[in-house]
């Protein structure tokens, strides 16, 4: 066990899998110069053939990853910021997601498309997207959205070893956060397995990516108010671990879905719908979503920051669900 950051976890997962399997290679814009620290020493270690800087042409190189995967390679594409996936929608949605299906199982596309969720720091609307739920609506793409270094490493290794296309959405609010990670070279977390991050009895909070860390802080504060919160992290959005969510909600009878994405058709929406459909009889209160509202993200920090799910908003929702009074405003 060693305590490492989320970015180091990405680095380790990539390095170990490239070491283990010569079919694994990595490409992306400006990855050789190692901007974020996820490819440290890669060129020296694996050579320029396997560590490729690409032209700025996402539809080209992401699609090319699909082609290379079809003939037996296992590409990792670092698409850097998730907003840059949009120019590649064509190849991701029409080729990568659908080839296995259209050709009746003849095609196999073992590739990983990594990108970060780059929100909260005045990068304005074109750089701040959290678009995983758009891809959840496209069958054929597995999706991971880890919330800490441990899960990041285990899930990314599983993604690289998986024989289907996997999109890895990496929350930049988690980048520098450290957690204990096993040293075992075969440490993998199976895709589709969520985890209860904190046990509780009054309210289930199902949180996505960086929102898990906010939810855990809210849970700690709510404990002081006598509200016991269970925090569930699905970790993988496709396939979604519906069982772990339903089990928790059947226990607590209340659910809050926290998601940094926009509200409409968010991962939170899918989870809320699942709860309403399958655990309706257990519910003691309506299911609530705490998300980013359906507006774009502005540059000006004063109006950007309040838009995201926050500890306070989760606490308000939890109090409302258990029927607890809101705390009196403190005199300034």
């Amino acid at each position: 066990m060693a305590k490492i950051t989320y970015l180091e976890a990405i680095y380790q997962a990539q390095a170990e899998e490239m070491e283990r399997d010569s079919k694994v290679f990595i490409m992306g814009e400006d990855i050789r110069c190692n901007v974020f620290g996820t490819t440290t020493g890669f060129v020296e270690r694996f050579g320029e053939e396997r560590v490729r800087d690409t032209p700025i042409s996402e539809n080209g190189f992401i699609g090319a990853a699909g082609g290379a995967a079809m003939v037996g390679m296992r590409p990792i594409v670092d698409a850097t910021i998730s907003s840059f996936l949009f120019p590649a929608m064509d190849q991701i949605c029409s080729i990568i997601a659908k080839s296995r299906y259209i050709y009746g199982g003849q095609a196999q596309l073992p590739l990983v498309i990594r990108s970060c969720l780059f929100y909260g720091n005045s990068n304005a609307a074109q750089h701040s997207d959290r678009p995983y739920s758009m891809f959840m609506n496209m069958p054929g793409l597995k999706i991971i959205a880890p919330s800490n270094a441990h899960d990041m490493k285990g899930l990314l290794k599983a993604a690289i070893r998986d024989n289907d296309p996997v999109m890895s959405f990496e929350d930049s609010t988690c980048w520098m956060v450290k957690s204990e990670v096993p040293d075992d070279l075969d440490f993998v977390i199976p895709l589709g397995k969520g985890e209860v991050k904190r046990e509780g009895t009054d309210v289930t909070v199902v949180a996505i990516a960086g929102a898990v860390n906010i939810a855990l802080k809210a849970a700690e504060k709510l404990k002081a108010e006598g509200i016991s919160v269970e925090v569930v992290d699905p970790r993988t959005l496709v396939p979604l671990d519906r069982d772990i969510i339903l089990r928790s909600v059947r226990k607590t009878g209340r659910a809050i879905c926290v998601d940094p994405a926009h509200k409409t058709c968010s991962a939170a929406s899918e989870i809320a719908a699942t709860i309403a459909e399958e655990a309706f009889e257990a519910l003691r209160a309506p299911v609530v979503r705490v998300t980013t509202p359906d507006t774009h993200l502005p540059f000006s920090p004063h109006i950007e920051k309040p838009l995201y799910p926050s500890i306070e908003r989760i606490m308000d929702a939890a109090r409302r669900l258990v029927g607890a009074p809101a705390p009196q405003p403190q005199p300034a």
Partner: protein
Amino acid sequence: MTAIGDNDRRIEKYRRMQRIRQFETRAETIHAAGEIPGALHTYAGMEASGVGACMALRDDDYMVGTHRSHGHPIAKGAKLRSLMAELLGKVTGICKGKGGSMHLSDFSMGSLGETSIVGSGGPVTAGAALGAKLQGLDRVALCFFGDGASSEGAIHEGMNLAAVWKLPAIFVCENNRFGMSTPTAAGVAGAHVADRAHGYGIPGIIVDGQDVDAVEAAVREAVDRARAGKGPTLIETKTYRYADHAVNMGRDLTPRGPEHDEWLARDPIVLYRARLVEDGVSGADLDAIDVQVAEEVADALNFARESAYPAFEEAFDHVFVDRLPIPDDVRAHA
């Protein structure tokens, strides 16, 4: 080549290049001090490219730019106050604090956006040129894009549309030698971006991007062609980015070669000043312009600093024509 245009025009070119340089020098300092949020991509070294191109346009001609957005609006004649206010995220900013450094876009000056998704301006430019043509306006649309952006499909789709429909468009590739850490030659196949024009059957022109007159002359010819209904032109300005991809990042990603010093020695503003002086413009007059510009920049910064930040509700404006409803749970903690 000698300076083109009468003295007023030549001095205006000098003034606009100075404006860009001084505006950004100030912006870089206050960004380092934390007064400007987000990333700041400066245009320093490329002033002749933007100013030369825009001086060949009319005020009502259209223009689309990039994430490196400070130079283009100033080159086209925008005033500094609302640009500086935008950098600071103030409500008086040209985009009301919504856009920031990557989107300094003044629609009153014919801008149709400075877009931070690399290459995304290509189709917009073709569309604006189409719209102008369909409405019988004799306007042209000019697209600034980078050498790196020349690898994006959207740029090529835009150029092909403009060529096949003979639209009044001008595509100006500002080849500043790098896309982030990647030298042009490592990301762009072929010797010159301009060569790609041949594939579309349109003129592909290479011009010294440090010579504001040469850029203006090349773009003017393309504009004349476009207005005459003869279709688009691709122009590649060979220029240089002085600073790193974005400033104050703590680490220079740009692999500078031995030619770095040669480029610095061909500073577009220094070169133009020398040409003007040689042609009889007095150095004192140019000094006076430098001082006036410094005052404009100081005034813009004061204005920006004294301006208010947008109110929380404004985060819900401009998604659509009407303000969106504001969710209670979000408002409660704004």
